[in-house]
């Protein structure tokens, strides 16, 4: 067991003489036994990063280290890592047992008995013992997924690499496997790098998450850090469901002037705004932070309901400022009766707003976070 370090790793593809930067100077340390989720939209370079660690792509510059040893010039078979593919990539002509044996036969000196023991153990751990003699084509998607995991686990590698392993499962099975995978990783305590485009998977599974966009690392932190203190507007918009609301505003002293509303800033918030912040800002507030108010007041706005998405215990309500085209989302209690066309007064609480520089996207104000609010938030939203 050891940690995995990416040290200024860059990947440049040559596309007909033109350089395409897929991964741009990513530095990242995955601690021993840690579950790190690499998340980002498609084409952000997360899979390329994973494949460079696996040795399936070469590294243009930078270094990848396993413990203290640089591994980026080793062949994939000499790296002692196991990978779970999105398509599972089970060998169709082999039974489940042969699939699981293959890696051990090729990468270890274990005898037949030793291999058999390891395969039986891993199969028992995953509950696929009765599938051992079947072929992949006879298995359901969920079973194939388990076998793919088994094939990785049986190797007992230094690092697990997982490339969107749950994305081919249906929603119910996916959330079930999410929990199971997490428990498994905790039991095995193997350093794991997990790639996904699904922010829910990132939030729920990762010890820490690393958010990539356009080949650049945006933020690395625990799920709650990324949720409550996003480093920039991209992270703020990517993490959280429904997505955060953004309003372009001009700062005019203690007031933010937006399209259809003015938002006065209380002095304690003004004090926390980063020094040197410009006046072109983005006011951001999470849908779950927007509160329905019972009367007019400061930082309260009258809005019209455009669409209501009932979710059961909560409703996602799309609201409009009067006379303004765009909508924003608020999550309100499921028992509150709101219908299309209703007029609702909502409050953006001053301690729950974020401000981003509109030009750079960098955060200039995080929501204020006391110990108590962090705990109640954790209970409610995560």
């Amino acid at each position: 067991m050891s940690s995995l370090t990416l040290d200024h790793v860059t990947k440049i593809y040559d596309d007909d003489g033109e350089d395409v930067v897929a991964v741009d100077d990513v530095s990242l340390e995955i601690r021993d036994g840690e579950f790190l989720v690499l998340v980002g939209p498609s084409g952000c370079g997360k899979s390329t990063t994973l494949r460079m660690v696996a040795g399936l792509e070469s590294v243009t510059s930078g270094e990848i280290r396993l413990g203290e040893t640089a591994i980026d010039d080793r062949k994939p078979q000499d790296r002692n890592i196991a990978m779970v593919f999105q398509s599972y990539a089970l060998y169709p002509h082999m039974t489940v047992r042969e699939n699981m044996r293959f890696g051990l036969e090729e990468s270890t000196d274990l005898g037949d008995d030793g291999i058999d023991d390891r395969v039986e153990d891993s199969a028992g751990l995953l509950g696929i013992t009765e599938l051992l003699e079947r072929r992949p084509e006879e298995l359901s998607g969920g079973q194939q997924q388990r076998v793919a995991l088994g094939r990785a686990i049986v190797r007992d590698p230094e690092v697990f690499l997982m490339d969107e392993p749950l994305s081919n499962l249906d929603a119910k099975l996916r959330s079930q496997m999410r929990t199971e995978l997490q428990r498994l990783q905790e039991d095995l305590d193997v350093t794991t790098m997990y790639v996904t485009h699904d922010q829910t998977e990132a939030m729920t599974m990762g010890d820490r998450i690393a958010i990539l966009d356009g080949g650049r690392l945006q933020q690395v932190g625990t799920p709650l850090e990324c949720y409550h203190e996003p480093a920039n507007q991209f992270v703020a918009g990517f993490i959280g469901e429904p997505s955060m609301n953004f309003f372009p505003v001009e700062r005019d002293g203690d007031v933010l002037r937006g399209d259809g509303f003015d938002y006065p800033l209380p002095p304690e918030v003004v004090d926390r705004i980063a020094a040197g912040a410009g006046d072109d800002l983005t006011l951001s507030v999470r849908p779950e932070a927007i509160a329905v108010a019972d009367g007019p007041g400061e930082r309260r706005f009258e809005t019209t309901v455009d669409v209501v998405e009932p979710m059961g215990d909560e409703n996602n309500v799309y609201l409009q400022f009067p006379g303004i085209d765009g909508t924003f989302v608020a999550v309100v209690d499921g028992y509150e009766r709101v219908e299309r066309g209703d007029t609702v007064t909502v409050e953006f609480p001053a301690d729950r707003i974020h401000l981003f520089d509109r030009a750079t996207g960098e955060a200039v104000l995080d929501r204020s976070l006391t110990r108590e609010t962090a705990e109640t938030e954790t209970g409610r939203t995560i």
Partner: protein
Amino acid sequence: MLRLIRSLVERARRERQQGGHRQDGEDRVRTDGGTVDPAVGSRSRGERAAATVRTATEGEFLRSAVFWLPPLLLTGLFVYGAIGWNVVISLTDWNGLGDPEYASFDVEMYARMLSDATFLAAARNTVALLVAFTVVTLLLGLFLAILVDRGIRFEGVFRTVYLLPMSLSFVVTAIFWAWVYNFENGLLNELFRAVGANFLVQGWISDPQFKLAAVVFALVWQFSGYAMVVYLAGLQSIPTDQFEAARVDGAGTVKLYLRVIIPQLRASTTSAAVVLMVFALKAFDFLFVLFGTNLGKSVDILAVMMYREAFGSGNWAYGSAIATVLFLMALSVIGPYLYYQYRRGDL
């Protein structure tokens, strides 16, 4: 064949009756859960006749006849009819000028084969050619396909180069190889002389020791490109994930191909092997151009012997019997393949 036609006609007749001649007054349950309108049974005769004509023309069977009937008749007559007639002739004693006698049938011709040394030699050569040619061609084709599939430069050019011999007529390639193998001034022997390897200078197509091997080599040259294309298609249908998973699992290149990739090419191997074996059985034109009809015991094959017996010596019945044996050999190659396809639901 006849039974098939009869059953099809039978079915069409039944369909017609069901459509037009419901005459009992009871409600009939239809497959969709409803009942048949009893009014159908009480239609006037004219209406019924019109309905009969209508269902007959609307029936899929008859409407599609335009497409299947002409080819069925043509192949029925010229392929299956000819095969049948050939078998019949092989049972007579027909030889020389004159007409065959269809009065008495016996298997004398087939008995004669067993004691005919020429036939036995030709049969042995045919099998040897079939096996050696097929195996070597498949191995070479697989090797080329793997090389071309590894993302080399000018992949398209190599593919064309390897496939090119396949597009040439056997007459052309036979003459071409006759020149290459020529003892006096052939390319091969000249090459050996040039490098001073005089002990390698041989009468490649005159020495009985090398004749068959020389023929196999030339045929392999011509057909390995075909095997390569079939394997290449198979290789390219294997997802990249399979290669990557095996490499991450610790397999080196050789193990990767031996244990993961080649076993997945079984379908390609089967289809290429069938085509090659059937070709080997009828490698007539190549040998005929190279050697004429008297090719000598060491390279005589059944296809040429059949031609020699029938059209050279006028032993029509014996030639037909050899043709029947060849037919059965081809069938024994194709039959299992078709059955295998049928079992997999591809037919």
